[in-house]
């Protein structure tokens, strides 16, 4: 099921309602124009979802070949790429990957009191190109490429439902365990680069993006219809902008929430136990209270 989070129709109704009741300034200035974020069917979505290992592997490939130009994953160790519940690459391949990583780790001080630069190992984080935020900003013309470890959890898709349907969407989201707003947003961002509408005046070095709040984004389009990553023939998918965006989003969903598979599996066991126990306790309670009218 796909549903527009922006819910254009409702937004129009809301704007009208607000304008009707407004005593102060009306909303919907240009920078408040609704973001265009669509809900996708993620393999890891909902109550039963689990990561698709092949997708995480493809996603890592995209991350490695595109995102690492500017971003790192400081909370993710190389070794975890080989662990179950993730891309689960062969351990040897991950060792080789770490040993050939383009960016070095600053370590030390060594016995002579000097800091050293060395290649990462399995226990080291997947470092990006910059040693610190200041270096990043100076190279990127003032913009800071954020660390991507938690980016999927740190973003969300805004709901623009009006007050009278807000509650129903909320309950529906709770009942279906919708928690993929960050992934939906990231996919929408990666595929959301467009020509700026004539009415919008773009700032220097900014790119128009339909999903980004305010629509002016400093990140140049990392992927496009003409520039995307080709996959190996046995990877389970063919490369395209759309497929790349989905796969790298899934990979970053994993880096943000590496315990998702275990969590959801254990969740079902716990809930089943609770459900049965609650029913048994209810039967006991009925039996006990059968002695008195109440």
């Amino acid at each position: 099921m796909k549903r527009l989070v922006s819910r254009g129709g409702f937004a129009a109704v809301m704007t009208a309602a607000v304008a009707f009741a407004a005593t102060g300034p009306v909303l919907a200035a240009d920078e408040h124009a609704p973001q265009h974020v669509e809900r996708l069917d993620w393999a890891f979505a909902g109550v039963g979802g689990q990561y698709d290992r092949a997708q995480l592997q493809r996603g890592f490939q995209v991350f490695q070949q595109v995102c690492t130009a500017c971003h790192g994953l400081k909370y993710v160790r190389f070794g975890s790429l080989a662990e179950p519940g993730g891309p689960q690459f062969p351990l040897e391949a991950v060792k080789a990957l770490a040993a050939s990583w383009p960016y070095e780790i600053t370590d030390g001080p060594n016995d002579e009191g000097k800091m050293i630069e060395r290649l990462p190992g399995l226990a080291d984080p997947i470092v990006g190109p910059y040693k610190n935020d200041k270096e990043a900003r100076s190279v990127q013309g003032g913009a800071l490429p954020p660390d991507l470890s938690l980016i999927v959890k740190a973003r969300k898709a805004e709901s623009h439902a009006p007050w009278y349907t807000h509650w129903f969407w909320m309950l529906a989201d709770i009942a279906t365990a919708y928690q993929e707003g960050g992934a939906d947003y990231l996919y929408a961002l990666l595929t959301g680069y467009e020509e700026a509408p004539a009415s919008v005046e773009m700032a220097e070095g900014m790119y128009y993006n339909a999903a980004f709040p305010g629509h002016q984004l400093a990140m140049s389009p990392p992927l496009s219809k003409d520039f995307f990553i080709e996959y190996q023939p046995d990877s389970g998918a063919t490369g395209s902008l759309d497929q790349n965006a989905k796969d790298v989003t899934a990979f970053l969903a994993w880096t943000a929430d590496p315990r998702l598979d275990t969590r959801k599996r254990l969740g079902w066991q716990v809930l089943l136990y609770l459900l049965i126990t609650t029913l048994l306790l209810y039967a006991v309670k009925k039996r006990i209270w059968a002695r008195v009218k109440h």
Partner: protein
Amino acid sequence: MAAHESTYEPKSRFGKWMDVRLPIGRLVHDQLVDFPTPRNLNYLWTFGGILSFFLMLQILTGIVLAMHYQPSAADAFDSIVRIDRDVNFGWLLRPLHAVGASMFFLAVYIHIFRGLYYGSYKAPREILWIIGVLIFVAMMAAAFLGYSLPWGQMSFWAVTVITNLFSSLDDVIPGLGTAVVQWLWGGYSVSGVTLNRFFSLHYLLPFVIVGLVGLHIWALHVVGQNNPTGVDIKTKSDAVTFYPYATSKDAVGIFGFMILFLWFVFFLPDYLGHADNYIPADPLVTPPHIVPEWYFLPYYAILRAIPSKLFGVIAIFSSMGVLLFVPWLDTSLVRSTKYRPLYKWFFWLFVFSCLALGYLGSKPAEGAYVFWARVFTVYYFAHFLIVLPLIGLIERPKSVPGSITEDVLGPAETAGAAAAGKKG
């Protein structure tokens, strides 16, 4: 009646020896086994047990989390991420604590609304009610302090906004607000020093709450539980014993509520939180919308509804403080809203106002949102200060049953039950 005669008879030699020295066995028997409980309680009365469960859960999970948490500006955020990734079952422990806090508030709100609906604050339960309000305020303080600990963007800016409220005291005595705020911060801005003291207080407050809960339960066991009719226990047939009747029902309530709780823990661990709190605190970047956790939203709406900062702060404290006076603001002689045809409507209007304020608190303070926040803020206070005193005077309540037994069995059977009670 709560002040029932003790039926405890120690059987073992140790029991008899203990009973004349420290009668714990007698206390447990009289208060948790033989304690008279109205026979007509519905499931809303299981929320006391549910809340006790959450208090214990928060303390236990909190103690373990504190073993892995680093209360410093440099390490706090990283240590939270490490708990999620590297600590054994840390990925479960942290949502248990964070979602647990949310569910604690959901349960306490249901508990409070139940008290308001059935008039559980009326004589002789005023002290019981007031202690309850104090617990609620202590819970809010504990939750606010706890929310600062992950030291994400929302943590940092929530602390900044809320502590800055006290700067409005400068309008009363110039310099006072600034002094108070700097005293709270331990410096000239929100910093690691602030985080460190907030962690200390966050660890302290739950034990204050435990003490208050002890008093709350003590007061409850002096005056006895209210019930849906609002009529006191008069005869033996009005009550059942706490064990096994109340305990078996509480068990169902607690486990049923746990299904909802663990649904969130396992499938929606971040739903009740805010995405911005996965961005490390940055004093130089203000988030576009600073929003508190959902359980503070109605109060946040009240704060922002008022144009003056000082009066906004006064309003937010009054909105909690007014609860202390509810026992005397309600002039009705009937406890339970079940028999109050006119007040019933206003009760639900009040519930709606609170929900509406919650919704408005989550929205930016502009345009129509501010207008409606003002409307519902006015009703919030009017409900307590005008509606509650006035309706009690003009309303003609429906006839209240003579006793709990009569309500359950009907008048005819009640006579028989009374006779049987005498024989037994």
